């Protein structure tokens, strides 16, 4: 184990796979511009390249390289930059295996940060998970810990499909224990971050920390929350969520995304469809308000989910 920040753990995951597999490529804007760049030094310019500001070409090149047998990782920095190339992300990369009747594989990783709610205002703060999670052929990964940041990155690279790997910018410097050596975290397997029998809280990314803080507060009040972190939202580990709901009968869903058509609403619908009879109270959701994120600090805080908001929702479903 090594204690390292989330951001370093992501790089550790990329290194792990680039060392073992010469077909892994890593490229993007403002990357590898000098010979001293750590990835250039180790893997050379054939596999590590800087690109111009051309997201459509960057992601499209990844699609072509993947079809031709390589495993590209595209550094996109911010999830919003993928919107410039939405056709490549949602209507090219995930379609080719299907349309070719299984003749090609498109193994690639689109690495991007999201949710940078610390004064980045309207265009760099989104939690865009729902835009990708509903596309057949894509996988969507949202690590909440340093260990998962490494292990999910490695699994993303090894996966034979296009993967949108969304790291949370507010977690960048969060430290955690990260396994040394080869570390892989399976897709579609939720982590139970805290066990409890009174209420199920499902949270993703940065909101996992909020949910755990809320659970601590609630424990002092005698309410024992189970906190589930799905880790990947496509595929989604519905089994773990439904098992917990069977046990607790009460559910609070936390999502940093704006509420309308969010991943929390997808989870709510599946719980209602499959475990309606287990529910003892309506499902409550703690999400961002349906708004563009404001710049001004108190306004920004006011539209995002909080630990206090999660506590209030839990008290309500447990009342």
């Amino acid at each position, binding site marked *: 184990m090594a204690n390292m920040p989330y951001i370093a753990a992501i790089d550790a995951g990329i290194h792990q796979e680039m060392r073992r597999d010469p077909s892994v490529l890593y490229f993007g804007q403002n990357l590898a511009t000098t010979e001293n760049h750590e990835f250039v030094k180790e893997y050379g310019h054939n596999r590590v390249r800087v690109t111009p500001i051309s997201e459509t*070409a960057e992601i499209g*090149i990844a699609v*072509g*390289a993947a079809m031709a047998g*390589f495993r590209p990782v595209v550094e996109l920095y911010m999830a919003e930059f993928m919107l410039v190339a939405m*056709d490549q992300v949602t209507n090219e990369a995930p379609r*080719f*295996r*299907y349309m070719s*009747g299984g003749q090609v594989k498109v193994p690639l990783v689109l690495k991007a940060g999201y949710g940078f709610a610390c004064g980045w205002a309207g265009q760099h703060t989104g939690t865009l998970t729902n835009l990708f999670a509903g596309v057949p052929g894509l996988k969507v990964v949202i690590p909440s810990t340093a260990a998962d940041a490494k292990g999910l990155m490695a699994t993303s690279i090894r996966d034979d499909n296009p993967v949108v790997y969304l790291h949370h910018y507010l977690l960048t410097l969060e430290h955690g224990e990260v396994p040394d050596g080869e570390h892989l975290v399976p897709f579609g397997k939720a982590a139970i971050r805290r066990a409890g029998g009174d209420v199920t809280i499902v949270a993703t990314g940065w909101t996992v920390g909020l949910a755990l803080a809320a659970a601590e507060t609630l424990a002092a009040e005698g309410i024992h929350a189970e906190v589930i972190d799905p880790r990947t939202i496509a595929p989604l580990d519905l089994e773990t969520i439904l098992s917990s709901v069977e046990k607790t009968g009460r559910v609070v869903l936390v999502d940093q995304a704006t509420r309308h058509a969010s991943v929390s609403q997808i989870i709510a619908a599946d719980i209602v469809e499959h475990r309606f009879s287990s529910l003892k109270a309506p499902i409550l959701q703690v999400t961002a308000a349906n708004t563009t994120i404001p710049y001004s600090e108190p306004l920004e805080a006011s539209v995002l989910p909080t630990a206090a908001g999660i506590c209030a929702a839990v008290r309500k479903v447990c009342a």
Partner: protein
Amino acid sequence: MSVNTPNAERQIWIYTQMLRIRTFEERVKRTFTDHPGVIRGHTHLADGAEASIVGSLSGFKKGDAALATYRCHGYPLVLGSDPKAAMAEIYGRVDGLCKGLGGSMHLTDVAHGFLGTSGIVGAGIPHAAGAAWAAQIRGKEEVVLCFFGDGASKQGAFAETLNIASLWKLPCVFVMENNGYNVVTTSAQEDANAAAGEPLSIKAKAFAMPGVTVDGTDPLAVHAVVSEAVARARAGHGPTLVESKVYRLSAHGNIIAPPGVPLHYPEHEAITVFGNSAEYEAALRGDPVPRFRGILVQNGILTPEHAAKITSEVDAEMQAAVDFALKSPFPTLESALQYNYA
């Protein structure tokens, strides 16, 4: 004739491939009347571009790759795909190249180097560059041929990709088949170079790569230009933009219609939209397939008897493709969910 001129046998091969594409697509077109309802959605024919397609692919080697657009029937036939499997795909049958999951717009045959086709205009251009990066890393002097239309050159994907391809000296040849129309919009209505009377190959200058315009109805001219570009790419000197001027002899595609309306091919837009029958008739008189046959006969490369034999063989081949595709069963319903993920 330059050193690049194919020998007599190869010229007959080129003619035969042109005729195979033409005859295959005539059978696609005829299917709308012979077997209504068998072809669904949207099909796009390459009639008029056969010389460009075959001339471009005549130097294709094992290990090379080609990528194209939704107007994609011709390339795999030249590269060695079985027309039975191509027709079965267009009919949505289990024996299709893509098991009936892709259809007319998405023919793919990896075993023959036909790597992929995007139905979104311009979107496939960066895919070709990605495959060319793969070829560059492998270092086996393999090249990628990227086919697209004149309309795609107005997409951001075109500009972004040509910039990177030139910067990285990727082994890629960009073949723009300029058929003069983006559906019903003429080049001069949408392209600043065309409006200024410039060839579209001038766009290459913006990306510091060679740009060449060639008569795409002359297979030997296309062969000469593309094989020079391919040689340059194989040698590690980077990409070339080739503008191949062709005339689409059919409408953009079959009519777009809701279920219940029989699909068919309307007349060319030059007639239906612009009322310019003279332009269309001139293009028909320049039809590259009979013209090249005439040239081969005139040059003593092909006898009329040999030409007739080729015609009857190709007719039989494509009749067999239609018969096979009609008999091929639909895919199992389970296969609809089979290939979303590897």
